[in-house]
């Protein structure tokens, strides 16, 4: 994020304070932002990429929410910005599934406990929330880099229990009501629920290039596209499934097990 945006963020914080709303966004402080974990700089190796893309890309250090955004937090957002309420948002920005599990426009209700991750939100809504919170959505590279960490080190693949946890989520059905966000086991960076609670939007979800018919990989110039045929490593084919999932989305989709979390540039602090 640029310095210019940063200035705007700080400015907005003043505005918030003036409005009497206390938001724990310490954008000007040197301390870690509350509820966020620092993901150290490193590289990300995509399982699906274009032939012209580099095999791995550098990822600068960044802050990532330690857990997904909750219904309670999203409720605060739609209270402030009514255009993101269920009745207000146009289908262009959120489809008919948007927040339909909430009991009322400003009442999450029993199907959406306040501490549970918010789902059924579009990419536009998630992005608007992030901007409102002085943050942004993580990129695919950032998200995957954070999710690639195990419980004890930055490389989850090296840990025995890691793959089982990743795959266990795929073997379990979606619960009717999600448990509290942040109740999962923290990974090496102190981030929770990346791989075992809900799907999460990323800023560049639409750069996932798995074709609708995933077997047509050759025509798209993709490397390692063909149905993850070569992905023997469970962590890799889980990553491939995430890429496939992202490619099925459109920016106005609101899906029953798709939420999000926010990120910030580390340089912002």
């Amino acid at each position: 994020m640029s310095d210019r945006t940063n200035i705007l963020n700080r400015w907005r914080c003043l505005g918030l304070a003036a409005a009497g709303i206390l938001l724990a966004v310490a954008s000007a402080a040197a301390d870690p932002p509350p509820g966020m974990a620092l993901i150290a700089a490193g590289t990300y190796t995509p399982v699906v990429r274009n032939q012209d893309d580099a095999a791995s890309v550098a990822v600068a250090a960044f802050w990532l929410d330690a857990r997904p955004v909750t219904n309670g937090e999203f409720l605060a957002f739609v209270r402030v910005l009514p255009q993101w309420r269920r009745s207000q948002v146009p289908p262009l920005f959120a489809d008919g599934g948007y927040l339909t599990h909430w009991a009322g426009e400003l009442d999450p209700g029993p199907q959406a406990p306040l501490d549970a991750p918010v789902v059924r939100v579009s990419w536009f809504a998630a992005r608007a929330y992030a901007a409102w919170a002085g943050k942004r959505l993580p990129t695919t590279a950032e998200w995957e880099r954070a999710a690639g960490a195990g419980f004890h080190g930055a490389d989850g693949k090296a840990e025995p229990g890691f793959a089982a946890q990743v795959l266990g989520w795929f073997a379990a059905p979606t619960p009717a009501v999600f448990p509290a966000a942040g109740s999962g086991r923290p990974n090496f960076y102190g981030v929770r629920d990346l791989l075992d609670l809900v799907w999460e939007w990323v800023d560049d979800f639409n750069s996932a290039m798995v074709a609708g018919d995933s077997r047509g990989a050759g025509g798209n110039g993709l490397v390692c596209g063909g149905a993850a045929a070569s992905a023997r490593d469970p962590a890799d084919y889980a990553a491939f499934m995430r890429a496939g999932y992202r490619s099925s989305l459109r920016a106005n989709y609101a899906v029953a097990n798709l939420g999000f979390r926010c990120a910030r540039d580390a340089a912002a602090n």
Partner: protein
Amino acid sequence: MLALSIENHRSRTMNFLKNPRIGFVAANSLLVVATAVLGYAPVRALLVGAGSVTAAMAVAEAVEATGGATAMPAAAPETAAAPAASDPSAARGPAPDLGLPVEQAVLTAPPQVPPPITRKYAAKVVVHLEVREVVKRLADGVEYLFWTFGGDVPGRFIRVREGDVVEFHLENSPNSKMPHNIDLHAVTGPGGGAASSFTAPGHSSQFTFQALNPGVFVYHCATAPVGMHIANGMYGLILVEPAAGLPKVDREYYVMQGEVYTAGRYGEEGLQPFDQEKAIDERAPYVVFNGAVGSLVGDNALTAKVGETVRLFVGNGGPNLVSSFHVIGEIFDTVYQEGGLSVAQHNVQTTLIPAGGSAVVEFKTEVPGTYVLVDHSIFRAFNKGALGMLKVAGPENRLIYSGKEIDAVYLGQAAAAGSDAQKREASLQAQIAEEIKTNPKIAGLTREAQVERGKRVFMQTCFACHQPDGKGLAGIYPPLAGSDFLRADRERPIRIVTKGLTGPVIVNGQTFNNIMPAQVLSDQQIADVLTYVTNSWGNTGEPYSVDDVRRVKAAGVSQ
């Protein structure tokens, strides 16, 4: 609050402007800038900026109706703004309307088949198929999160007529975790419909195809990783009935084979996750008909009456294995190999069904009895679950099949040699059993509950040889009902089940010289099945406990 809104929106707008991934359409840029200047909530202001709220909303709804692919708002990443022509999953509106009569397809869950099509003209057939990810029974005590076309494995049977225009709606349940699509081998067109039906959870896709070629075709999900989607149960059959129809038969059934790659071994209880490594290595713990061990056994067996002609539509979802499909005790009068309906092969014992392929088999039932459907790659039938039953009721015809005529003792050369030793051992074991009897242990379960559980294990693992009535087959498989061999030694059955037994043995005066392999069962399952065996068909005995099993196993190790 107004200032807040302005700043919120300006901040967001600046984010968009600064993001190098975002490509702008000039007009939209103007709108965004205009919105920023207006400083109002982005959506309404943007629409006002477009000229007319009503008109803009109509545009938005139109975009929604077509999947939103061609007119993403300015903020969408540039890949979303790709022209529809290069995106096969983009919605392109309805296909040309030929003015055909419209009807809703009748879909059936396995093993049922929709009724024959009697009309003599082509129609537009509307199919609604819902993808659901559901936890279902794979075997007793074993569950699996199946991905299904319609809630069952295999998916709903679809029946259309040659020349029909099929309007296909694929609906992905909101509770699904994964996107899915469908490749129907009956479709002539890229991907068999897969590219046109890629559907996120909570969405639906529509595409239309004409059923040009008659035959029985497999359909399956082709979403990455394709093998996993198929292994998780995403396959089924669509019949394109020839314009002239199929010959009339008395019964039609739908059977489809597939493998399941569980992390646990066969019979390991609990909710089992998928195992990619086993799938790649083609080491399937389960090979089953219709999605589960025992799905066509007992009360779920297929039925027919003597003299009826039965037609089985048999598919093989794979994902890996080719089926050697056979019905024990029947000869297929007619086989339409590989699901093509124009060439009929006759008098076939076993027909190969490729993964992603099908066959139609027909036979007239002549005599009553239970006919066993197997994959004659036979370990799959007896050790992995590829076994079903057709129960045929009616009068016997001893001219065609006599039943057993003579039961005589036949002593092979070595039969007597082992028998004395066996008897001595039996005597010793009887003493041991007596010792145990005087010190009864309390099992954690009541005998009745254990018998019920044991029956399930028996009907899954043992009945194929020892027969559901426990009487075995004379000269081949020893009886368990009224068996002096079992009565003689309480621990012997535990050893036989855990280690297997190679003959000869004498049971009720008859010699059996055969091989029983060791069975892969948990200690609890062994205790249950032995309690069932020793308390069924007139047998009476103390229940077996897990401790009994462990003690005997441990003794075996220390020997």
